[in-house]
């Protein structure tokens, strides 16, 4: 309430502490060390096709991790992102198979396939929203319901087998033909990532997301329509998942029912490593981007140093622990 010299000293101390304990800086160091380490151990690692491949793993992960970032900052959780990836990919693949059989052109087919995938995303997002805001189901359970339904329906619709038979040019789109590093959909995804990052930290949409996660009562008292905003957040998350589902179709030329299984945990891992607090109201977009990057780099890097791929989960688990531990430490120091 009053100016005093103690405040000034405290603010300098607080700044020094926050710089030392800055999760993003630490993550950037971890990422750099990992890339350096893998490159030293295996010189083949530091090559354009390898990074193009890492990026193609990263695109779908970052899409769902961003959705998860908004949801978790708003104080909720979305377990249905992985199932939405699979289900939207499968339904879109079925639609494209039918259109191709009916002799529709590949471009039209791909476009309609995209709309179908997004439509599935919208439906899942709306279902999550209705359960959470109208029926008062907690987000964990509501999205567990859509997780189960989505994964189940994917298998029911396909009989468990991948669906191909779509337009033949789909896979060309996912080729990294820009500087040998980026695919065209990949560049669009990067652009989308930047825009969403700005929306989280510079625009009203993000401000309200933080406010609701921080104190929903204050948000409501300030005149924010909390339920309407949460609807937008859950629909955004589901639609981003459907983008990822469609991206997988482009990459694999098939819609497989198991695509995206467990992806929700990877997304949550990326978000948590990035320093977003599961209690809501806190988080940083750059953290999620770095968290997802680290997970993608680890996945490819371990193969290059001849470590079985399953170790990736162990490494990610260790990273989650360290990230959460540091966060805990920071809040304790602050208090």
């Amino acid at each position, binding site marked *: *309430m*009053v*100016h005093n010299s103690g*405040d*000034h000293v405290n*603010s300098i101390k*607080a700044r020094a502490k926050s710089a030392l304990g800055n999760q993003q800086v630490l993550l950037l160091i971890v990422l750099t060390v990992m890339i350096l380490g893998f490159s030293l151990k295996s010189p083949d690692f530091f090559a354009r096709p390898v990074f193009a491949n890492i990026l193609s793993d990263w695109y779908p992960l970052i899409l769902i991790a961003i959705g998860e970032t908004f949801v978790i900052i708003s104080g909720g959780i979305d377990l249905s992102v992985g199932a939405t990836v699979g289900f939207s990919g499968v339904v879109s693949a079925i639609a494209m198979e039918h259109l191709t059989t009916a002799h529709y052109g590949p471009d039209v087919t791909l476009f309609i396939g995209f709309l179908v995938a997004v439509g599935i995303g919208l439906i899942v997002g709306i279902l999550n929203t209705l359960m959470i805001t109208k029926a008062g189901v907690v987000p964990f359970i509501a999205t567990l319901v859509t997780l189960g339904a989505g994964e189940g329906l994917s298998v029911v619709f396909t009989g468990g087998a991948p669906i191909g038979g779509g337009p033949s040019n789909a896979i060309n789109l996912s080729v990294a033909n820009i500087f040998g590093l980026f695919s065209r959909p990949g560049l669009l995804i990067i652009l989308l990532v930047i825009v969403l990052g*700005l*929306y989280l930290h*510079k*625009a*009203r*949409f993000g*401000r309200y997301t*933080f*406010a609701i*996660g*921080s*104190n929903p*009562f*204050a*948000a*409501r*008292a*300030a*005149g*924010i329509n909390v339920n309407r905003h949460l609807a937008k957040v859950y629909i955004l998350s589901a639609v981003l998942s459907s983008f990822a589902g469609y991206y997988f179709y482009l990459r694999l030329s098939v819609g497989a029912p198991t695509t995206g299984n467990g992806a929700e945990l990877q997304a949550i891992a990326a978000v948590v490593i990035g320093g977003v607090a599961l209690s809501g*109201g*806190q988080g940083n977009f750059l953290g999620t981007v770095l968290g997802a990057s680290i997970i993608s780099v680890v996945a490819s890097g371990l193969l290059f140093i001849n470590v079985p791929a399953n170790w990736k989960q162990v490494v990610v688990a260790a990273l989650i622990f360290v990230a959460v531990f540091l966060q805990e430490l920071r809040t304790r120091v602050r208090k």
Partner: protein
Amino acid sequence: MTTPLYEVRNVSKHYGSVVALDDVSLSIAPGEVLGLVGDNGAGKSTLVKILSGAHSPTHGQIFLEGEERSWNSPHEALEAGVETLYQDSGLAPHLSVSANVFLGREEYVPGILGKLGFLAQKKMDLDAHANLERVGIAVPQSSRSISQLSGGQRQAVAIGRAVSWASKVIILDEPTNHLGARQAGEVLAIIRRAKAQGLGVIFISHTLPHVLEVTDRIVVLRLGKIVANAPTSEFDAEKLLGTITGLIDSK
């Protein structure tokens, strides 16, 4: 008699068979500080909810500047110039001071980016500081997050936010709760300044010395009814306490 600034007439509120408020009428003039006191369960918080637009009365009317109003949400009351500071729920701790001051009233950068929802953060930082200073609150940096402030500073920001936005009436529910003597004194100073600006202030508190110190008139609620409504000068601590508890029947 001039038109009161804010008025409720014959307001009752029933929750099922429970009568929380029973035929309550009160009014407040511009530049008046009205104390609202009563024991737990007397109906204070119900009355606050009706005044702030959070609940609608079962019976009775609400008038703002002589015009009958009915609030469908606290937001409608806010827009009409009636601000409420709720007990302990005012601020988003992870957000900065200025983000809190401007919460729900954000300002945007000019041009197309502003239309897309991009915030004029620097302007809001400066304006938040100026707005808080205008009502008598100096916060070190309006870009600091609320969680970095002390309890007293937080409460000051919450009150400053409400006072700086209120154009007609401000309702303060237990604003001096959990505050030290010096900080409570500063809150009372903010109330006096709001009064000097011509706002109607409704001050709800359990801390009777604060009520006696800052109010012009006191309304005492007991079991959902108004049992006293008189200038503060007619009360002393003993009489006020007696009226609240029912040991003195002032009617």
